[in-house]
């Protein structure tokens, strides 16, 4: 069985010894203690597990860790730089775009990826781009507002 011994996570090389068939979500959470990416369904229906792989929003619960070796992985823990929040993180706080917050890390990573593809999205583009994410508390309209606000502030950074 092939093993993965190193991953590029949040700009650092992280050592581990994991079966290549394991999910990226499990390796991040259980081996690397990066618990910001959440388990919500295990079948790609809720996107709470979203991380960036080479800049693309990726559902880590459906991603085998063997497929991301050598790729740049960014989790919610790696988004703020030197204690300064990413504009999308700030926008979520300012729009109060969360309640229990369990979906929030995945939402933010999804939004960051969306804004990289579409820097000035329409509401329709946000809804289409984010529709795979579930917020059970129902803060969807606020999340759309937060993404719009982040876009206006140059949310790509």
């Amino acid at each position, binding site marked *: 069985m092939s093993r993965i011994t190193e991953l590029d996570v949040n700009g650092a090389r992280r050592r581990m010894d994991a*079966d290549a068939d*394991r999910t990226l979500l*499990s390796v991040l*959470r*259980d081996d690397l*203690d*990066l*618990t*910001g*990416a*959440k*388990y*919500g*369904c*295990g*079948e790609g*229906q*809720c996107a*709470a597990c979203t991380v960036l792989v080479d800049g693309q929003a990726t559902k880590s619960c459906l991603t085998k860790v063997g497929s991301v070796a050598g790729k740049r992985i960014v*989790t*919610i*823990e790696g*988004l*703020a730089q030197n204690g300064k*929040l990413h504009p999308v*993180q700030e926008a*979520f*706080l300012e729009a*109060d775009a*969360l*309640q*229990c*917050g*369990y*979906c*929030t*890390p995945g939402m*933010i990573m999804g939004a960051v990826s969306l804004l990289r593809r579409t820097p000035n999205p329409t509401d329709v583009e*946000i*809804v*289409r781009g*984010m*529709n795979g*994410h*579930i*917020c*059970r*508390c*129902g*803060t*969807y*309209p*606020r*999340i*759309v507002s937060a993404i719009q606000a982040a876009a206006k502030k140059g949310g790509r950074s």
Partner: protein
Amino acid sequence: MISRRDFFGVLGGGIVVVLIADDCDAQESGGGARRGTREATPETIGAWLHIGENGLVSVFTGKVEVGQNARTSLTQAVAEELHAPLAGIKMVMGDTALTPFDMGTVGSMTTPRMWPQMRKAAAAAREMLIDLATQKWSVDRASVSIADGKVTSASHTATFGELTHGEKLTRTIPGTLALTPATEWKVAGTSAPKVDGRDIVTGAHQYAYDMKRPGMLWAKVLYPPQFGATLLSLDAKAAEAMPGVKVVCDGNFVGVAAPDQAAAAAAVMALKAQWKPLTAETSAKDVAAYFRKNARDGAAPAAPLTTYNIAYIAHVPLEPRAAVAEWEDGKLTVWTGSQRPFGVRSELASSFEIPEDRVRVIVPDTGSGYGGKHQGDAAYEAARIAKAVGKPVKRNWTREEELTWAYFRPGGVIDVGGKLNPDGTIAEWEMHNYNSGPSGLQTPYHVPSKKEQYHQTKSPLRQGSYRGLAATANHFVRESYMDELAHSVNLDPLEFRLRNARDERLRAVIEAAAARFGWKERKKTAGRGFGIAGGFEKGSYVATCAEVSVDNATRAVKVLRAVVSFECGGIVNPEHLRNQVEGAVAMGIGGALFEHIDFADNKILTNRLSKYRLPRFADMPVIESVLLDRKDITPAGAGETPIVGIAPAVGNAIFDATGQRLRALPLAP
């Protein structure tokens, strides 16, 4: 719970205020206990507050944070009366070793009960600080004031820490202390931001699902293939041969512990179990007849009433049930996501036959509950397996387990009927609810002659509390039928409601929603419809207007716009209230249009998110909220009631669009 003599040993020096709750009442709960449970006798302490020698204010409450922003609103309550900045106040919540007993974060009780208690405790602490300053400075007490966390009198000034340094003072106060009137609030009533928001947007917050303990094992439980099945035999040899795997079997309970999650799952797969099935008594298709047949008091005659049906639905908290359990010297500590930390403590103490003071339950801020996290299932499983293997154990439920083995919002059958006077006022009203529950069953409209009855019956599924309890089902039926009555005499649905609503607060929300929505100016076009609904529950009033489109070919319903007006007395945090009200509408669209639990042969068929449709971004209407701030009325909770209006408003709008009256949740034209 800390003994009152131990305060300073545990918390350090300073001052402590102990608040005696002025009343303790029973609150609704849920989940149909799987195991025998018994609540401890409620203590009379409502909350306590400590100001340390470093000036940090710590406030202890048994309430928990599940996304309703109680952590923020309670912090505001303390800041308001203590005249201290929010950043200097730390809420310690839901830890049975540190916080006073609490029945649970249920029934929208945090704001009406705990919120004023926090204010009273803070007001008493403020007076203690003024006393200390008066003594230390030998000044006239009236000259001492507190603002922004500083105590001053003429040329004297001190931080809280400077005053509490070297002190060990306690004061016990009754719950009847006078408080700052709402019209003079400075911090309460404002849109303070979520106090722990940064931890959430950075991924730093650890939910129970995320928690780890040194040396812990991962647990998994083998559930029967069907509800009610009993274990005939178990062959665990293959599983026990796996490295590091231990199998725990006791009666019907079969669990494993393994070094990691994958190994635990593999071990459960390797178990060979034989189960004796239980014959299913009913299924989702015929459960309505089952409810009637099993009514304890005998079913009332359905004719000439009109029958509505309500599906079972699931809470689907995005964080599934999770727990970490650790035994040390016969003492059990459990970290778990729950709305009832003390209830879970009772369950554990009773299950393991140990005194409650040997069980500590700690609830990290939780990935939502909506009434669905009252029981300690994951906590019990983790503790049981941890006890058997002698190591800390983590038990995280999968979504499939959550959708199958948690409890549901009850399904139900509701019969309703009414007679009108010639002037369009209601003369008689009758409503019978089978199984879904009594909450919200009483009409808020003026009716001279009425009969409203909840009939207990048998539920084929495990059922319990849900956001708003049965108020959603009862409001759906009542407000749909109000529409039926209005149309039967060609009265506008708004006009009909106002003709029958005498309660000024109800009238106010209905009028506010209609005005913002533009009800009177609405223009009907093909495939579009408008609906309105109002109601009252748990001390607050709601009215909802909805506009829908119904696709002529596919019959797909889209809610285009929803206006909800809400009044819960004085508003304690407008932005967070708006968030709750809008979120309730968003969540309510699921139960209105597509959520339902399908079951047959004692199996849940909708056991994955791919089979259980939840509201998503694309389902969202434009949601507008109109908040009515009644500072003259004691604040009520707001996490539940805003959900009750959307389903009937949408159903009435579908009728307006299609002429088809839908008498079942979910609404499927």
